[in-house]
């Protein structure tokens, strides 16, 4: 179990909850007073529905909403404690494990293909989707005895994959799915007592089961060997614990939508406040989660009516939670400290002569580019050679840009994976893509009809600000890889929240944002492509002097220091390089791409083990992947175009899951 370096002085879980409960009650009273007067408001709790309108609104909307907020917060916090206990990872949460995105995707698919199912019950559709995605994660991690690192890795991949599938559906059916966008952003609005009545028995059962599992689950705090020596079947216990957490999450998610942060924050706050044993952690986290969500929701309701759009509570909790997460990260002591995590980095065999395979792949890239330039579709169907070579003015920039961004993302990914000795590291995880995406979204919404140059400038500024935040927050700990990744996760959470809020507003400009977010080379013109290609070449070559560092840093800080490397300085330099690479690529193909994760990983699996060949192999594979993804995306649903980033995610994600199973 990770331990905390500091405890909050003078605070116990009881006191925190009491403090928050005071604020919560105050809000309830003032809010009721504002709505209808305190007495009338309280009477509305039990009022029969044939009363005057105002009381009906209180009875059917205000009170059920409060109840669902309390219940939902409690359920998510409980699930969060279970996830974190079982996975021994303080950052495990329903949203990071793919449960939420699975539920989301199931609802989208049902809306489009089998709307009859929704009439039967949205909650069951969501539950099935969430269960399915968690099942997939289990399947991926089964061979490794559901080891925590592999489960988190699998969850991340499933999350990205389902997220990408969801984006495809959304891109082509924005109007039909606009209601789900509200749900996806976590809205607690109620219009009757049905949802509260749905949650009560299910959460009661869940809490009861958690209580029964209390003692066996506490054993999980020991390491695997000690726990096994006590005669506990770890696999079954983990399965049971995770299954229970998924059930709780699914129930809440199906009713209230995606409200991820509570499940992450409540358990961590309680632990920071000094609750060590599982029993008190479960109890106080549940209470705190309920109060946190209900208080946030009450505060938000105060703003409704002032703004032209409903602000979804779930996205707001994530937005408010991110700073807390950033504050939390430097204060967590991760047991993986300075050494590389077990497993993970040893994927793949080292190959004796990587040069030949590299050359072969290079030829592959050239061939792919030629095919992509020649073959395509026009008004009169397919052609192997374009009837009018003028068409190259559209194709060449896209091929060049996709290859270049593939190279940049792959090199960035390879560096960050070696730097952190962590196979789940990727430019997206660092949050730089997210940071620049937030800036671009802001640009699209706040400036009237911005041109591409403005957007590029805005996006670069966003990436640089994110980089500054990353550096500022990690300077004091010497850029420890895990810390850095966690900071990135927090920034990504901000980005997700901003995106959800924007999309839930239902503004038609959301389509433009969506189009860019899904990572298309569509907006690249020839000068742009040349700039990107030049950047890729310069930045790619800039990485070569650092190959020695990249060979040594994965061995751990102590070894690196012993070999005479300034660990902090080299990490900072590499970090800046990664940031530049990521920002340049993000501006072309959007923040959502699997290539930074996938290409370095594939290169490793193919046997490019040393840093030099790893970088080169990843770069070539990255270019190949993106060129193929771009071309496939343009042909598959012609004349509609599936963005290259999405296609890369879908192709790459499937491959990655298959590879993960064999690890």
């Amino acid at each position, binding site marked *: 179990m990770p331990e905390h370096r500091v405890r909050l002085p003078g605070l116990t879980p009881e006191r925190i909850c009491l403090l928050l409960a005071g604020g919560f009650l105050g809000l309830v009273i003032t809010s009721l007073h504002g709505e209808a007067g305190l007495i009338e408001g309280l009477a509305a709790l039990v009022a029969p*529905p044939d009363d005057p*309108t*105002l009381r*009906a609104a209180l009875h*059917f*909307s205000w009170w059920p909403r409060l109840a669902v907020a309390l219940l939902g917060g409690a359920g998510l916090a409980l699930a969060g404690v279970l996830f974190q206990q079982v996975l021994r990872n303080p950052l495990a949460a329903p949203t990071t494990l793919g449960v939420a995105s699975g539920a989301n995707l199931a609802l989208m698919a049902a*809306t489009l293909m089998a*709307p009859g199912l*929704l*009439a039967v019950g949205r909650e069951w559709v969501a539950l099935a989707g969430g269960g399915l995605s968690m099942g997939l994660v289990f399947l991926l991690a089964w061979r490794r005895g559901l080891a925590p690192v592999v489960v988190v890795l699998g969850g991340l991949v499933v999350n990205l994959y389902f997220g990408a599938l969801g984006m495809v559906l959304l*891109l*082509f059916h924005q*109007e039909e799915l*606009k*209601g789900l966008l*509200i*749900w996806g952003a976590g*809205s607690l*609005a*109620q*219009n*009757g*007592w*049905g949802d509260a009545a749905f949650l009560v028995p299910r959460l009661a059962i869940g809490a009861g089961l958690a209580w029964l599992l209390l003692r066996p689950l506490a054993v999980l705090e020991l390491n695997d060997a000690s726990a096994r020596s006590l005669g506990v079947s770890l696999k079954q216990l983990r399965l049971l614990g995770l299954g229970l957490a998924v059930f709780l999450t699914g129930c809440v998610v199906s009713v209230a939508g995606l409200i991820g942060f509570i499940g992450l924050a409540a358990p961590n706050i309680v632990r920071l406040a000094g609750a060590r044993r599982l029993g008190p952690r479960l109890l106080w986290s549940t209470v705190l989660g309920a109060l946190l969500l209900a208080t946030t929701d009450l505060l938000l309701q105060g703003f*409704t*009516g002032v703004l*032209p*759009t*409903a602000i979804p509570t779930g996205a707001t909790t994530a937005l408010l939670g991110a700073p807390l997460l950033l504050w939390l990260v430097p204060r967590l002591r991760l047991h993986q400290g300075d050494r590389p995590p077990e497993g993970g980095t040893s994927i793949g065999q080292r190959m004796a002569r990587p040069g030949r395979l590299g050359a072969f792949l290079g030829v592959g890239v050239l061939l792919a580019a030629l095919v992509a330039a020649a073959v*395509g*579709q*026009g*008004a*009169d*169907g*397919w*052609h*192997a050679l374009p*009837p*009018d070579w003028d*068409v190259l*003015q*559209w194709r060449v920039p896209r091929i060049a840009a996709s290859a270049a961004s593939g190279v940049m993302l792959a090199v960035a990914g390879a560096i960050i994976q070696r730097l952190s000795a962590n196979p789940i590291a990727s430019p997206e995880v660092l949050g730089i893509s997210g940071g620049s995406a937030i800036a671009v979204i802001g640009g699209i919404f706040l400036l*009237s*009809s911005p041109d*591409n140059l403005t*957007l590029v400038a805005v996006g670069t500024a966003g990436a640089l600000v994110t980089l500054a935040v990353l550096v500022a927050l990690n300077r004091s700990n010497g850029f420890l890889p895990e810390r850095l990744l966690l900071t990135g996760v927090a920034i990504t959470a901000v980005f997700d929240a901003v995106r959800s809020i924007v999309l*839930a507003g*239902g*503004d*038609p*400009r959301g*389509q*433009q944002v969506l*189009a860019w977010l899904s990572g298309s080379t569509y907006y690249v*013109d020839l000068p742009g492509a040349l700039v990107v290609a030049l950047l890729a070449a310069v930045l790619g070559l800039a990485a070569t002097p650092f190959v020695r560092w990249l060979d040594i840093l994965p061995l751990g800080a102590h070894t690196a220091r012993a070999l005479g490397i300034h660990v902090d300085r080299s990490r900072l330099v590499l970090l800046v390089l990664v940031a530049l690479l990521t920002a340049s690529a993000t501006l072309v193909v959007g923040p959502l791409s699997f290539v930074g994760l996938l290409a370095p990983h594939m290169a490793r699996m193919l046997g490019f083990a040393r840093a030099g060949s790893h970088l080169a192999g990843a770069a070539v594979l990255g270019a190949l992947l993106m060129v193929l993804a771009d071309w496939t995306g343009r042909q598959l649903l*012609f*004349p*509609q*175009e599936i963005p290259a980033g999405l296609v890369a995610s879908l192709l790459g994600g499937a491959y990655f899951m298959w590879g993960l199973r064999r690890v």
Partner: protein
Amino acid sequence: MAPCRLADTGLRAARVLAFLWLIVPAAAPASSPRIATLDWTLAETLLALGVTPAAVAQVDAYDAWVREPELPADVVDLGLRTQPNLELLADLEPDRILISPMFANLEPRLRRIAPVDILSLYTPETDTWAEMLSLTRELGRLAGREAAAEQLIADTQARIEALGDRVDDISTPLLLVQFMDARHVRVFGDNGLYQAVLDQLGLDNGWPGTTNYWGFATAGLEELAGIDARLVVVRPYPAGVEERLESSGLWQALPSVRRGTTITLPPVWSFGALPSARRFAEALVTALEEADA
């Protein structure tokens, strides 16, 4: 990859034919220019002017959301509105491309294919109806159908005036909503199509809140509870929502629902121009009369 085989004679023949087909209309005396548009609102106005656009973006979505006037089958689909297929568009060789400011970022690229005109509607702080009329005239000018544009304006205004006379005695404010899910609606207000039509008909809008750039606000059902106005629900309902509303305590308790005065309208493109405005006016007045009869 299978369908593309190098130097396929059949394919080559087809290409020659297609080439000829492209040549012929250009050689014939062109009555009106070949126009491509990304915007459904411009497309529906063009159709109302008797001009069939050569290509429109997202044809299937147009059929689902705008519906009328119907797009002829030979209109080429350009793909997503935000990312029209440039290769296809260039291949079609249109004389003119029309877009709305929402897609202004595409303009430099589209200009390489054909002259581009940006026509705006729903500009904040301007009178929507007046802007709709000038949009129609501008389109008429671009398509060489000035007379048809004046005719469309005159017809629509006369029709709406006649419809307005039929609802002279209605003083209850209306609340125009479209469901997003069982708990949330879009409420339409200032700077939108429906509001412009309400103004023309002389009806009141009961929504006291603000609206966004596009003339609507996203609101929870509970925000409607305190408003004493007749609810007008514009279809379509999202899947499952109609069933859920039957068991929704809050919905049943809304004043308009309790009194049974709520009316539902067939789908009308809520960001449209004159054709949509006319359809909406017809549907609204008919429904109001039926409900009060």
